[in-house]
């Protein structure tokens, strides 16, 4: 059975294709349209999925949308009713959108499908999956577990904001739910908004800011904003939030509680904002841990699957891992709404195809079914050369992979920033070594250079390490697979450097400039790191590159950050990579076997990239 999954019309549109339960292809629309978080129908992603699977549209058995529009509309109606006459401004904005478009989503989807291929647009093929069920399916079906507890947490789908389910064989049964307006995702987003970051995009910045602060407001949040029970269930005090009826996340009561109005975007970050970030992070970790512990006790399950936007909070995930609540954890790499497309497709494939799950075998144990999340477009060497030539690039071609690795590893060891574009693009928000900017983590200046001269982003933001799986426990306090960069653990004590009293006294972001370990570029101010383990069987070329870098330097770790600048979607094509390369201070670009040096390029092709994108 071939099933096409679609998420769209809210944020992070995506398409995914599943054949007999196997994930064949998946991609976010933003990568093709170059519009970050693009909510439009994923026409390009869908066409790509069909191309990648090499199938005629007529062979698609089912098309499934990742949520149920009528159920969402029901939530809106009941919310407006519950709060009336408050909420008129929100109602005024929402109703035209729903009456003009969203109530007709079935017809809209069919129309869009018809534009791709009339064979796809059959009414009887179209299905709708519940939002949190899509998330649950995206976490359980590709997991390496025969049986697991599945926990999903996000802002809101239709009604559900948190769900717990049991996945067993090819079935998922929801056992508990928390409903709107009580939402952990929306609570976190309220603080994202209040600290001046964009909701649904800046949450990971807030998480990165947290280690600079002290959780001085944790008790206040737990006392005033949220009634948290011992089992992790919770209710929010809606007197402090505006999202049910207004057009902002928080209100004046919230401002009063935390001493002033929300920070404006790009305004100076102060210790107050860092303390707020630390506090909401601490509360989030407390809630996730309580939920995990109580559900472990209640269900007796030993494996945990996570999805939903909150599952991208890798600091909280790391805490769950360290507390050893569960024996093993699998986190869907596309845990946000884009992954809903994949989950919806998997849910329908298993429900209607009555498939038996088979777990792919890794070197020592079953591997998950996400194929390293390398599910996007790839380009042949001929295609790369043709495209780069057409773009005006000057390049040399390495004779083989060994030569490519040697030249790249040398450049990295020399302190150069390298754009690395190889194989299939990643699905999900993280670059995992196929669309990455790489650097030497031992360099004390690499973090600053990457932030300010290459990514053009806020100087407080940390970078993540890619480390050989077999070496991870030599460098970090972690000894499990973390292939999707969704677990945080500390740099090992023997690689840390003690700070002097004067350095300890430094304020907030100044601490970041103090080298605190042998790999300062990937060590956050609290000595933690967001780790990606690199596996020879899922990405042999990247594994080979890090191995050669380790031979040259003794360090089996690289800085790995997404190949884009602030506000830009991660690059997809060789042309995207070349444009980004010419717009920032990356020294070397490697696309397939093509090697491009900045000094050899035509200066006329350089462009102002810093202001090319709307800030996120």
């Amino acid at each position, binding site marked *: 059975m071939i099933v096409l999954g679609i998420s769209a019309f809210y944020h992070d549109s995506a398409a995914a294709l599943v054949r007999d339960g196997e994930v064949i292809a998946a991609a976010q629309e933003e990568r093709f349209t170059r519009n970050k978080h693009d*909510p439009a129908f994923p026409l390009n992603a869908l066409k790509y999925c069909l191309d990648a699977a090499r199938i005629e549209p007529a062979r698609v058995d089912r098309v499934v949308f990742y949520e149920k529009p*009528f*159920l*969402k*509309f*029901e939530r*809106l*109606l*009941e919310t*407006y*009713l519950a709060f009336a006459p408050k909420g008129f401004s*929100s*109602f*005024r*904005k*929402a*109703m*035209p*959108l*729903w*009456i*003009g*478009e*969203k*109530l*007709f989503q*079935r*017809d809209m989807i069919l129309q869009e499908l018809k534009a791709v291929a009339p064979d796809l647009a059959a009414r009887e093929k179209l299905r709708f999956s519940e939002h949190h069920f899509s998330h649950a399916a995206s976490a359980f079906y590709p997991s390496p577990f025969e049986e697991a507890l599945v926990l999903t947490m996000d*802002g*809101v789908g239709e009604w559900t904001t948190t769900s717990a389910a049991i996945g067993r064989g090819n079935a998922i049964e929801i056992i508990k739910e928390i409903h*709107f307006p009580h939402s952990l995702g*929306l609570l976190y*987003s309220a603080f994202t*908004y209040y600290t001046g970051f964009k*909701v*649904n995009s800046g949450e990971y910045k807030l998480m990165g800011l947290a280690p600079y602060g002290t959780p001085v407001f944790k008790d206040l949040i737990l006392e005033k904003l949220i009634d948290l029970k011992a089992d992790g269930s919770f209710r929010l005090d809606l007197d402090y939030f505006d*999202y*049910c009826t207004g*057009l*902002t*996340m928080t209100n004046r009561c919230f401002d009063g509680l935390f001493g002033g109005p929300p920070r404006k975007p790009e305004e100076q970050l102060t210790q107050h904002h860092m303390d707020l970030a630390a506090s909401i992070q601490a509360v989030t970790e407390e809630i996730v841990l309580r939920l995990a512990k109580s559900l472990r006790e209640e269900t007796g399950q030993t494996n945990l699957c996570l999805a939903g936007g909150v599952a991208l909070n890798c600091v909280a995930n790391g805490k769950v891992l360290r507390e050893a609540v569960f024996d093993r954890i699998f986190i869907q790499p596309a845990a946000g709404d884009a992954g809903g497309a994949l989950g919806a497709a998997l849910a329908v494939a298993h429900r209607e195809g009555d498939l038996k799950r088979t777990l792919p075998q890794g070197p020592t144990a079953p591997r998950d079914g996400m194929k390293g999340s390398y599910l996007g477009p790839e380009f042949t060497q001929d295609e790369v050369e043709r495209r780069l030539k057409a773009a005006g690039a000057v390049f040399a071609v390495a004779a083989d992979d060994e030569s490519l690795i040697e030249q790249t590893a040398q450049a990295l060891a020399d302190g150069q920033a390298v754009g690395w574009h190889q194989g299939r693009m990643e699905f999900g928000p993280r670059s995992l070594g196929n669309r990455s900017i790489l650097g030497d983590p031992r360099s004390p200046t690499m973090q600053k250079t990457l932030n300010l001269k290459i990514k053009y982003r806020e100087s407080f933001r940390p970078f993540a390490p890619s480390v050989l799986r077999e070496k991870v426990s030599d460098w970090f306090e972690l000894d499990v697979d973390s292939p999707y960069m969704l677990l945080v653990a500390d740099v090992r004590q023997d690689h840390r450097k003690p700070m002097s009293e004067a350095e300890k006294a430094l304020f907030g972001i100044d601490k970041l400039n103090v080298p605190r370990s042998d790999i300062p570029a990937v060590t956050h101010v609290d000595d933690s790191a967001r780790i990606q383990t690199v596996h020879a069987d899922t990405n042999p070329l990247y594994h080979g590159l890090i191995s050669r870098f380790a031979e040259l330097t003794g360090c089996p770790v690289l800085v790995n950050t997404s190949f884009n600048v602030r506000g830009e979607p991660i690059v997809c094509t060789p042309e995207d990579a070349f444009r980004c390369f010419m717009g920032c201070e990356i020294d070397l670009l490697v696309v397939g076997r093509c090697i491009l040096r900045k000094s050899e390029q035509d200066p006329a092709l350089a462009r102002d990239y810093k202001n090319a994108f709307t800030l996120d």
Partner: protein
Amino acid sequence: MSMVAELFDFLNSRKKLWLVPLLALFLVFGGLFVLSQGSVVAPFIYTLF
């Protein structure tokens, strides 16, 4: 019309037919907003719809 029938079936299956009068009222108001606005564009703010 098929959307209206589908929506009615949906509310019936959810045992929420009591929402129908409210829905009718909302549709009238909403329709007026559509006509008065001219175009349907998602607002540039964070919304839960």
